[in-house]
């Protein structure tokens, strides 16, 4: 899906680096909402994964073809019926989870199809967003949430704490959680200081 945060440094996007660290070499990966395929290429190059992507935007798929990736034009909201249970080591929803119509269904399907699921989200409760809402009285536009309210691909606005609570309520086990600012990991008060978060999820408590 289009429209992801552009927090670059010398080593590429920090969320991509965090995900790269999580993935075991040689594993199988399904990237839901893979966009132009940067993350998938990185994982193939650096971890030797066997990867597939699903993407709804035509022009993003063209760029995936340029990269030689295996990508399917589809809407992940329609579910993943073709895939059997646990058919991938990892299913990734990086910056696409907040863009789907039915997060419940999509995440349930991801957890069925993947042994593990990686979810990356922008943190709506980051301090800069809070300031913009509180002092300017405006919907936040930040590097992690770069879109104006009228042309954002994001359908759901959630914070890190929202996601933690969501997983707790559904009995989804969070194996690892990483929080990051523009370039560096964030250790303290992530719900206030992190722009993005990446979670490694498993089934059950």
């Amino acid at each position: 899906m289009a429209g992801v945060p552009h927090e670059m440094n010398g080593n590429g996007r920090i969320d991509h680096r965090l995900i790269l660290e999580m993935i075991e070499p040689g594993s199988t990966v399904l990237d839901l909402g893979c966009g132009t395929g940067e993350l998938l290429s990185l994982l193939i190059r650096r971890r030797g994964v066997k990867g597939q992507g699903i993407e709804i935007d035509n022009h993003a798929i063209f760029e995936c073809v340029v990269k030689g990736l295996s990508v399917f034009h589809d809407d992940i909201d329609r579910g993943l019926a073709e895939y059997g249970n646990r058919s991938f080591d990892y299913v990734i929803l990086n910056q696409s989870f907040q863009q789907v119509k039915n997060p419940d269904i999509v995440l349930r399907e991801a957890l069925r199809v993947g042994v593990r699921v990686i979810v990356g989200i922008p943190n709506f409760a980051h301090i800069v967003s809070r300031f913009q809402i509180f002092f300017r009285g405006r919907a936040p536009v930040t590097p992690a949430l770069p879109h104006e309210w009228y042309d954002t691909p994001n359908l759901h606005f959630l914070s890190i704490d929202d996601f933690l609570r969501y997983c707790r309520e559904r009995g989804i086990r969070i194996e690892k959680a990483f929080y990051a600012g523009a370039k560096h990991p964030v250790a303290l008060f992530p719900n206030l200081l992190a722009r993005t978060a990446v979670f490694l999820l498993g089934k059950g408590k």
Partner: protein
Amino acid sequence: MNLTARKVKAGQNEGIGPVKTQSFTFGHFPAPFILESGESIGPVTLAYETYGRLDADASNAILILHALTGDAHAAGYHEGDVNPGWWDDMIGPGRAFDTDRYFVVCSNVLGGCRGSTGPSSENPLTGRPYGLEFPVVTIRDMVSAQRRLLDHLGIDMLLAVAGGSMGGMQALQWVVSYPEKVASAILIATTAEHTPQQIAFNEVGRQAIMADPNWNNGDYYGLGLPDKGLSVARMVGHITYMSDDSMNEKFGRRVKDTKQQFKFSPEFEVEGYLHYRGYNFINRFDPNSYLYITKAVDSFAVANGKPLHKLLEGVGTKLLIIAFSSDWLYPPYQAQQIVKACKMAGADATYCELRSNYGHDAFLVELDEQTYLYTHFLKKVCDGRRAA
């Protein structure tokens, strides 16, 4: 399929230039070509054209497969012709199927009438055209015959097979029949099996031909041709190749400016267009071939009742599957059924639905996006093979 709006984009260069159709004959007595039905036929001739140069290790060959009424003349110009081959914008130096890099082969199908053995060819047993003595042929038979041609050309492994519509069915059949001989496949606006709607349209066409008194049970050679029947068949075909939008854009409700001869003379431009397409078709197509080839696509079901994903398991061919949004003859859902099987089989596949208003004709008309996709796809296939 005809080239309604092919003059969309001229190539950046002169293209291939002059070409000639060649032919290859095999299956001579006493070793005829055995068909899927168990019947045999021989000798069999296939008309084909080649463009570009085959590598020393014969590793750069691409087989292009034509649609229902296409032929071997995919690119370049025949001597004295005004129009180039049917996919000239896609095949040539610097084009999607780049003849500076690849050796491109396009073969006419078995059962056809454009230089290959078909019902209008001479039956060696009688010395007369086969007519309905010609055996039923299938998509798989067409592909097996092409395999013989490639053996003759010294090509064991294909870098790619590519085709739209019936050509896509052949490409898919290639993947299923010879998975280890096909590094990649581009399947365009096609299906894994014909649906009742597709069969129904073809049946109208066949009935039109057979209802023509001139048809004479297929024995019309040297007599009056069933041209009216074939013309109606072609008109039905053309309707299914276009879309509501493309017809609106092309014809609107505009009327022809010629005087009407009688009440039901063609009045609207769309009628005139269909008549023109229909009447001209007899000049290049044999009515019996139309019967045999439409029957071949109607009987096509590549998995033959089995789950398609079982056939694709372990297949190493890299697939690119393309559908067009307004194609109602081969709608995107049919391509998605192939895609679904690829996902279930874990095949290395990519699927993209291209937006177009041109209906099924889009694969002959919407060239920019196809060029971009196929160019890069083939480049990656090449890189992958070099690395392996």
